[in-house]
């Protein structure tokens, strides 16, 4: 799958800049985190890092180009087997950018109409959400490893240090238990911390603070001391980072009373739900996905745009089977739905958005219509999100089911590091198609 590389912003206020230099050529192999280009504004120079890995398939904006608008596609990263020959009409000016098709699903059951939208990366949406809440509420601050000077290990906090300064955008030592615990204490004392875990894998070091302290103190103190806090960061498999750095924590955290657990998929999800999470008076686990960071979709420009926690979204309407997915698996389910449509099966796709509290009502309403359900998750099957959703469906609308509930999930093994095996361990659209086909 081709991934666009977009012109990044040095700060939330930057609108355009100069593409100073390409450090990679078409055909070069690029690893995640590798510097591929340099951009300049009148204030600063910044390196552009690849988020995904692959080969540089096309350069869309030539080096030396001035006035490149933020979010303009500047290059295309291709997966193996794609055409790496230089594009014949590689643009020499920003205005001549070749648009690259990005899967933008039709949102059949739409959210509230928030008016005009603009294409935004998930990364940018998350940053915009934090920036908006930092502006609106003095109590909000961000802390974590590399969030300030380095602008985030995955550049999610890009520009925030510039705008909000080191008192509110705070680099911590490598001490997950320490900084998560500090943030919990600060929240209990009246601030509203956003804790960035470089990845949720590292939250295991801090899980005692999250569950025993953040999730339980309001309850155990008879209501005296609450903990308004957001723990956020990329969750689940990225690409080739090995078993210890590729784990999905959705069902771990969704298991625990006292927590809210949110898993956005689109850029609009990311922005609207993160703003809601920061405003929420309870501890919220916000599970992002590294692979989604660079993906572009439409986000309302309304400055008040917000999405409610606890509400799922029907991303595609259908009549024959309900596909229930979360995070990056929403995209997998949508691709499967397209393939199923070719076979004459109409799939309804539900993006859960929130795992706790679970919007089972939306799922049940859909299953009552379609009579079939397949859940799609990246995590392990045992006591997973699919197990929970399917059980609740059985409890609430057993008589409407025309086939046994089914689930698609990551294989029940630590994620292999080997590229060929990693691919085989994570759900693909054809797994979903196969699971659905069995129900008919």
């Amino acid at each position: 799958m081709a991934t666009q590389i977009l012109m990044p912003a040095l700060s939330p206020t930057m609108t355009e800049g100069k593409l100073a230099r390409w450090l990679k050529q078409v055909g070069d192999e690029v690893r995640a985190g590798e510097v591929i280009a340099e951009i300049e504004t009148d204030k600063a120079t910044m390196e552009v890092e690849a988020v995904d890995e692959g080969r540089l398939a096309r350069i869309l904006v030539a080096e030396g180009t001035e006035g490149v608008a933020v979010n303009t596609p500047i290059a295309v990263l291709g997966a193996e087997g794609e055409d790496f020959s230089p594009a014949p009409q590689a643009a020499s000016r920003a205005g001549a950018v070749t648009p690259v098709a990005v899967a933008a699903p039709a949102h059949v059951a739409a959210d509230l109409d928030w008016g005009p939208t603009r294409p935004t990366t998930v990364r940018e949406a998350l940053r915009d959400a934090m920036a908006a809440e930092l502006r609106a509420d003095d109590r909000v601050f961000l802390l974590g490893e590399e969030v300030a000077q380095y602008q985030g290990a995955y550049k999610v906090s890009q520009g925030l240090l510039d705008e909000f300064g080191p008192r509110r955008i705070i680099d911590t030592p490598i001490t997950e238990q320490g900084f998560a615990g500090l943030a919990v204490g600060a929240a209990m004392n009246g601030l509203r911390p956003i804790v960035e875990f470089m990845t949720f894998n590292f939250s295991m070091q801090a899980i005692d603070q999250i569950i025993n302290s953040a999730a339980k103190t309001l309850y155990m103190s008879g209501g005296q001391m609450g903990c308004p806090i957001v723990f956020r960061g990329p969750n689940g498999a990225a690409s080739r980072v090995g078993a210890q750095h590729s784990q999905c924590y959705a069902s771990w955290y969704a298991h625990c009373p006292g927590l809210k657990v949110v898993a956005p998929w689109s850029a609009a999800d990311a922005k609207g739900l993160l703003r809601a999470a920061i405003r929420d008076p309870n501890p919220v686990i916000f599970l992002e996905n590294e692979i989604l960071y660079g993906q572009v979709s439409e986000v309302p420009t309304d400055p008040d745009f917000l999405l409610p926690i606890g509400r799922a979204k029907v991303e595609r309407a259908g009549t024959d089977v309900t596909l229930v997915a979360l995070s990056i698996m929403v995209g997998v389910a949508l691709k499967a739905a397209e393939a199923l449509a070719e076979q004459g099966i109409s799939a309804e796709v539900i993006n859960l958005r929130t795992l706790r509290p679970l919007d089972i009502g939306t799922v049940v309403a859909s299953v009552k219509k379609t009579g079939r359900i397949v859940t799609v998750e990246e995590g392990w099957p045992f006591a997973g999100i699919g197990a929970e959703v399917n059980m609740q469906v059985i409890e609430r609308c057993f008589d409407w089911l025309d086939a046994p509930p089914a689930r698609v999930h990551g294989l029940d093994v630590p994620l292999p590091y080997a590229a060929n095996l990693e691919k085989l361990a994570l759900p693909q659209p054809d797994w979903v198609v196969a699971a659905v086909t069995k129900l008919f």
Partner: protein
Amino acid sequence: MSTSRVAEFDVVLTRYLDIDGAPLGPLPAFAADAADLVPLYRALIRTRTFDAKAVALQRTGRLGTFASSLGQEAVGVGAASAMAADDVLVPSFRDQAAQLWRGVTPVELLLYWGGDERGSDFAGPRGDFPISVPVASHVPHAAGVALALKLRNEARAVLCIIGDGATSKGDFYEALNIAGAWQLPLVVLVNNNQWAISVRREAQSAAQTLAQKAIAAGVPGEQVDGNDVITVHDTVANAIARARAGEGTSLIEALTYRLSDHTTADDARRYRGDAEVSLHWHGEPVARLRQYLVGQGAWSRDDEEHALADAADEMERATEAYLAMAPQPVSAMFDHLFATLPVSLRSERDEAMGGEAGHA
């Protein structure tokens, strides 16, 4: 090869009264007039009386598991009396001395130890933290409160009390390290009562002192005689003053001895001899301060009898109020789980409450 000494450290131990209550030299200014120490002495008695009452209630099935502070009362009284009202106490589970001084009531403490969460919703020091039963996981919280105070530019300090056992834990080290790096207004007070349940201090760490654990974090660490309330008060007051002045974090190791079992669920005779315990009764904090006050003419046998009777009365009244408290309603099981109960939990709550109605 060339070697050079690049850093040097030492750890001092401070004590003003010897184990028989005799001054070892001039006392700090706050203790110059012995009459000014009487409130501290009354607080020591009050704590000891509370502990005895709580143990008795547990033994008769009217209280849950309880951790007595017998022999360690001066740690909490000395420290809490050095705090200002707007400082924040982040206590462990053996800090009733500090909590009582700060204004948590005996009824609230009995409620807490009786298993009623309303006991942590104390009316007095609202900014103080509820008791942390998990060991050392409240040290990061304390550092976090200190961070909040610093971010808001408030000249206040945080006092976190932990036991010797807690200094073996990662969360203690992580919090102390980051508090040192960020110069947070935090005082970590280690109540070293020599025992982590059944594990002796020497078996917990090869470190010669627990105070020296501060040195690796770049913060001052010192020892005090934890059975001398004057020393504890003075040392904590100095550390709090530094914290309030923006001079950062301190660690104080208060040397004391746990004369009681670890909790009412423990029988310490299984792992330590009576002779060792008897030895440590000499120098315990209540007798020590009493001897000093009597020697100074600031306390009499009559005062003692009245103080003991007053404390006993207070704890008797607290017990009656605690035992008369109506049990929590079934709905309380769902209260405070979230700021507002999510819709998905309402049916579970209503079902549980239906059960209550059925039994009524």
